């Protein structure tokens, strides 16, 4: 009693946050598409917007959880949980935190299960090349995580407990092979005079699951994670302001498992520690009604430390360390006139990395990038908006990249608008592709060399008589150049009534000079030596559609679908020329037909979501999401190196997630849910899905009424 009285004294009055409509209105403000605030109804490329309310109601803990429910996004499971957008690999989607890139990718994959969503206010997803504003990696698109600004004095705490049992289907706590996860979040906002402060602390403890019938182990790993995020905001007079965001993320994984190679089973013990730090100061000036200035600094570092100990081969055990740092300073100016806005910016970035997988941990690798970008946004009355932009990135390590983009929105009627865009995206080679010097002593003794070292190392081995054969690709080794993509997106948006929105988009991406790992030489002991080459050309194309319907203020229905077709252009040429082969059912070879071709591996042709939510005025809700993904190729099982109808597939699946919420009082709300109700599991090909999980969350929110004006 006394405690609650104290709380009441501390915070003058409390109330649960006001309701917001589930449906996105065209009035919602987004920033990613143009690098400044724009209403959804006024931007020239489609943006998928996910609000905090939806993230919470879906019971999402990590970025992975909420992204897997979005149209046109597929999860991948090599080197952590990656995301595939418009059929492009995880390394081609840029992931931003308040507009600045997250680093710490493994083999190009930024593990989206690493990122807690507790401190995220909204997520903006832009599909299609966006390098004209964001530079490298924005080939498939951009996912921008916008953090919560410090606002009203607020104290919020939540505790979640979940349990699953992959063997039984239904989890029983504290049983042998049960998977338990506990998440705790504490959110606090307050002011010290005019300085506004917000803290978000998030803790996650989750078990791993040992549900592996055979030796290939890929399961959710036991994890301990702490994320701390602090934002401070200070107004400097009427015309200026300062915001600083700081974020620390710490992961610890630990597990025992077995790996298999050439029929050998090797039992291992693994331990991984990851540390991440982001600091983002932003200074804002309004010079006049027309001119605004943003000065942004960014400092981020990521370090990973992996230890792997083999029981049978202790001398092969290794410890891998990887450190990456990025510093950036950027100036952006927005100049606004009646019917046009000009945005221009200039920036300088230093990126450094050290790794035991490069020549030596002590040797720091560095790439400096200087860049300029400009964008001209022109309004043609109420009818159309056109945006023309371009960016130039100069890298000290490779050739520069120019990435233009043009986009248009045409409002045919108030209820019908069209958008079209053509743009270029690029991805600079990463340090691994330049400097990797890695020999896998466990799995067959193969080696991979970055292009900076490959020629020198292999020539040296050759002089020592260590090389049995140089492959034709060895002569093609040269300085890597950035990968490029050209993307076209056309879409129509139809809003017959405020309660209904229907959107259809068509996309096509043509990707040039994709970097691929190729065997360049063979050692005398038969082990293979690999390096990287700009070789492949590929395309992805498809249709994405989404439909939203709000029924009587209580029901909302949201349906999405994507059809995706992909291909490697060289393979496609060879198929057209009759130079690729396939097997008949009796085992004999025949020439492959066009219809036998599947395209790029690990991509589902079809994907759909159906989300239904019921929510009443008292904030009681039930939110159901049904997700479908069609089969995808995982292994080439007929030896032709091309993915075709005879290959091995992972089975398509349906996933159902249900959550429900019940406010118990003005301050306390209860949430319960079942993730993966149908208990879909695929240990081999999508191990990051943990099977049916039942969870309960209790959330207490104390918010000051007083400071509301």
């Amino acid at each position, binding site marked *: 009693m006394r405690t609650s009285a104290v709380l009441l004294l501390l915070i003058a009055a409390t109330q649960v946050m006001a309701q917001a409509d589930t449906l996105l209105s065209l009035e919602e403000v987004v920033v990613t598409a143009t690098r400044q605030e724009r209403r959804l109804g006024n931007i020239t490329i489609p943006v998928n917007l996910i609000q905090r309310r939806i993230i919470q109601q879906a019971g999402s803990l990590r970025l992975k959880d909420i992204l897997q429910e979005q149209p046109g996004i597929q999860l991948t499971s090599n080197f952590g949980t990656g995301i595939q957008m418009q059929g492009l690999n995880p390394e081609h989607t840029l992931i931003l935190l308040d507009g600045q890139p997250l680093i710490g990718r493994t083999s190009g994959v930024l593990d989206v299960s690493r990122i807690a969503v507790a401190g995220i206010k909204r997520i903006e997803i832009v599909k299609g090349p966006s390098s004209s504003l964001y530079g490298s990696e924005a080939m498939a698109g951009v996912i921008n995580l916008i953090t919560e600004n410090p606002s009203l004095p607020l104290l919020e705490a939540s505790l979640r407990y979940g349990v699953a049992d992959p063997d039984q289907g239904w989890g029983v706590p504290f049983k042998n092979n049960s998977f338990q996860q506990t998440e705790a979040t504490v959110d606090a906002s307050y002011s010290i005079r005019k300085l506004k402060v917000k803290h978000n602390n998030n803790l996650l403890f989750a078990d791993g699951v040992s549900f592996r*019938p055979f030796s*290939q182990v890929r399961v959710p790993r036991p994890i301990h994670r702490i994320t701390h995020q602090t934002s401070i905001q200070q107004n400097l007079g009427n015309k200026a302001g300062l915001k600083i965001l700081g974020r620390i993320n710490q992961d610890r994984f630990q597990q025992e498992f077995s790996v298999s190679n050439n*029929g050998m089973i090797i039992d291992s013990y693994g331990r991984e520690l990851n540390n991440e730090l982001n600091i983002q100061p932003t200074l804002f000036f309004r010079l006049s009604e027309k001119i605004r200035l943003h000065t942004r600094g960014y400092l981020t570092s990521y370090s990973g430390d992996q230890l792997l100990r083999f029981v049978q081969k202790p001398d092969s055990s290794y410890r891998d360390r990887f450190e990456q740092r990025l510093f950036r300073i950027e100036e952006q100016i927005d100049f606004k006139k009646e019917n046009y806005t000009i945005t221009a910016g200039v920036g300088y970035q230093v990126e450094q990395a050290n790794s035991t997988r490069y020549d030596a941990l002590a040797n720091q690798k560095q790439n400096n990038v200087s860049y300029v970008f400009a964008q001209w946004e022109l309004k043609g009355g109420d009818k159309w908006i056109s945006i023309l932009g371009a960016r130039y990135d100069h890298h000290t390590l490779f050739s520069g990249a120019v990435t233009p983009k043009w986009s248009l929105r045409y409002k045919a009627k108030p209820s019908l608008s069209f958008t079209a865009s053509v743009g270029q995206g690029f991805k600079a080679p990463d340090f691994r592709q330049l400097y990797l010097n890695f020999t896998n002593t466990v799995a067959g003794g193969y080696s991979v060399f970055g292009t900076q070292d490959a020629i020198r190392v292999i020539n040296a081995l050759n002089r020592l008589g260590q090389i049995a054969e140089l492959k034709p690709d060895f002569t093609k080794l040269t300085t890597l150049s950035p990968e490029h993509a050209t993307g076209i997106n056309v879409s129509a948006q139809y809003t017959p009534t405020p309660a209904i929105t229907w959107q259809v988009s068509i996309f096509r991406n043509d990707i040039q000079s994709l970097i691929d790992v190729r065997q360049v030489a063979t050692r005398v002991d038969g082990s293979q030596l690999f390096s990287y080459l700009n070789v492949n050309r590929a395309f992805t194309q498809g249709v994405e559609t989404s439909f939203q319907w709000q029924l009587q203020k209580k029901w909302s229905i949201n349906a999405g679908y994507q059809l995706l077709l992909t291909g490697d252009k060289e393979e496609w040429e060879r198929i057209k020329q009759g130079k690729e082969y396939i*097997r008949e059912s009796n*085992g*004999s070879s025949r020439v492959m037909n066009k219809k036998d071709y599947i395209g790029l591996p690990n991509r589902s042709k079809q994907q759909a979501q159906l989300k239904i939510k019921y929510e009443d005025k008292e904030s009681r809700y039930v939110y159901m999401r049904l997700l479908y993904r069609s089969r995808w190729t995982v292994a*080439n099982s007929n030896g032709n*190196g091309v993915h075709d109808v005879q290959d091995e597939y992972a089975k398509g699946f349906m996933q159902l997630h249900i959550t429900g919420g019940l406010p118990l009082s003005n301050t306390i709300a209860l949430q319960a849910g079942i993730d993966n109700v149908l208990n879909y599991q695929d240990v081999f090909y999508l191990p990051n899905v943990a099977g049916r999980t039942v969870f309960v969350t209790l959330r207490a929110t104390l918010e000051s009424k007083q400071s509301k004006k």
Partner: protein
Amino acid sequence: MRAILVSAAVLLSITSCEKDKLPKTVDQRAYAVETIGKITTVKNLPADTIIGTNSIGQPVGAGRYSFFSLETGQWISNADSNSTKWDLAFAGTVVRINNATSGPGAGGAFVFNGTFESLSSISADSVFRLDNHPVAYAIPRGSGRAWYTYDGPTNLLTPIPGRTLVIRTATGKFAKVEMLNYYRGGQTPSATAADSVKTRDQRFLHFRYTYQGNGTTQF
């Protein structure tokens, strides 16, 4: 091509008639040789099958070759290894021809990129390669080089479709060979199968060939 299909269809219908009379289960996992028209198909030829593991745990065979005569379609005794009675010798992924360092015959081989059926004659400028046992072979070893690919992550070996081995036999005749499968029963295990299954069932070769006994290079 059509004639072959028709005759194969006729033969199939004959065999199915016979099957109707004598219901007999065919052991899909046993060594068998069957000739239909010009094509002989060999199934489940053991090629140094796995007998255990070495000191570091890798599965190994006994190191014995299986010698095979394309002329007679017979598995030749190891006692005749130093004769011209055999044309090909198999152990795991190694295919030896009867010449040079491998045997006393007049053998030779090269890999033709194209289907078995499309190879109707050996072009005059073809170069037959010789073995340099045990370092290198006329039909090279290694993933993606001659007739197979090996995938480390799935631990599976798959013959490459559209690769035909062109063979000069021990007595100087010609033959064309297509490797069909590497596993017992002629079915490659699923990528997710246990490694014990992949180890147990590997090195049982399936291939088909056409032997031209008149000395010409026409098939």
